[in-house]
Structure formats: C-alpha cells, structure tokens
C-alpha cells in the first residue's frame, strides 16, 4: 500500500516542477537494527523519487557499505542523505513525516537548485564562520 495519497503525490509532483539539477536520496537501512522503520523510510523515499525523473534513490546498509557510511558520517538507521551537485550535509534521521515531510520536499528542491533561500546578510555571515557547525533539529511528526 502506498504511503503517499494521490492528492499528496499531485501536490509534490507540482512542487518538483521547480527541480533543476539531479538529486540523489542516499538511504541507509539495516533490517536487523530497525526493520519496520527502515522499510517504511525506503518506501517513502522511493515514492517521492518516483514523482520526478530528476531524483534517484540509492539504498545502502551501513554494516556492509561501511566506507560509504563513514564518508557520509552515518552511524544510525534509517538515515537519508539529500544530495545534489554535492553533499551539502543534509541528513534526515528517521522517517520524515508530518512537518518534516514538507521540509524534505523543500530541501530536495533547494538542493536541486543549489540555492539557499536566505538573506544576503545571512549568507555573508555564514561565509565568514570560523568553524564548522552541526545543527541538530529534533522534531515529531505532529
């Protein structure tokens, strides 16, 4: 059974008309660690990817594809990397449902376009950051 309803598919397909460059969802799954969550996450990512020919999905197992997992800094499952022309450092831990689903769609579009929707002042400040910053955002589907 599909996770996305027909009306959601239509809405996302329309949003994806703004995609420019290719996007890859690199999905880390491990049946033995979190089977049901990983299956659902994989299915959701594949359903979203089917809504545009610019999106591809690659499924990896961190226990097998260790070097790739390490390169992406992935230790948990399910994790999805949203990659555009390069890896921008965007990760989703868990299934992006509810509010996070719209965030997934927004991230996919932004990564595809390689464009950050921020003020010029913000971009200038970010360019001058003295060190790396990892931003963790905890949320729930509702």
């Amino acid at each position, binding site marked *: 059974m599909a996770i996305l309803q027909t009306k959601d598919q239509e809405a996302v397909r329309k949003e994806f008309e703004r995609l420019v460059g290719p996007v890859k969802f690199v999905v880390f799954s491990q049946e033995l660690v979190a089977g049901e969550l990983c299956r659902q996450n994989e299915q959701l990512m594949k359903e979203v990817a089917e809504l545009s020919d610019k999106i591809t999905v690659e499924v990896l197992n961190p226990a097998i594809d260790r070097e790739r997992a390490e390169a992406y800094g992935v230790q948990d499952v399910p994790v999805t990397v949203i990659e555009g022309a390069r890896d921008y450092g*965007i990760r989703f831990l868990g*299934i992006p449902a509810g509010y996070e689903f719209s965030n997934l769609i927004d991230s996919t579009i932004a990564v595809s376009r390689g464009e950050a929707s921020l003020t010029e002042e913000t971009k200038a400040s970010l*360019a001058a950051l003295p060190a*790396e910053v*990892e*931003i963790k955002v905890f949320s729930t589907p509702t």
Partner: protein
Amino acid sequence: MRLAQHMAIASDKVRAVAIEATEFPELSRAYQVMAVPKIVMNDRVQFEGALPEAQFLEAVVRAASGNGQS
C-alpha cells in the same frame, strides 16, 4: 527546520541533521528533548522553538565561535 537546511546549502561549514525524536529515543534522551522543535548546535548552543532567521544565525555564529552561552 527549513533554516538549518538552507544554511547547509549556503555554507560548506554547516551540516543540518533533522531527527525524528520518537524514532531515536536514546538520542532524544541524551539531548534532553522535552519539547519540539529542539535545536542543538555543536552540542553547545541549544534552544526550543522556531526562531527568525537573524536570531537563528546568531546562534549558529555563537556555536561556531565556541561560545556556548545560549
């Protein structure tokens, strides 16, 4: 949160990790997530709730500067 992802696109130095709190209970406990959204930057700067872009940026700059007073 949208701002985090867009900042990651704008800067090689920023990574944005969205975490579904109920699916990662140990991580949520470790970071004492009581309300969402909860934002943690470099394990130093943290706050709950959405912030406007300018204040969010201030927190990022603080995290990058190693000043954890939040």
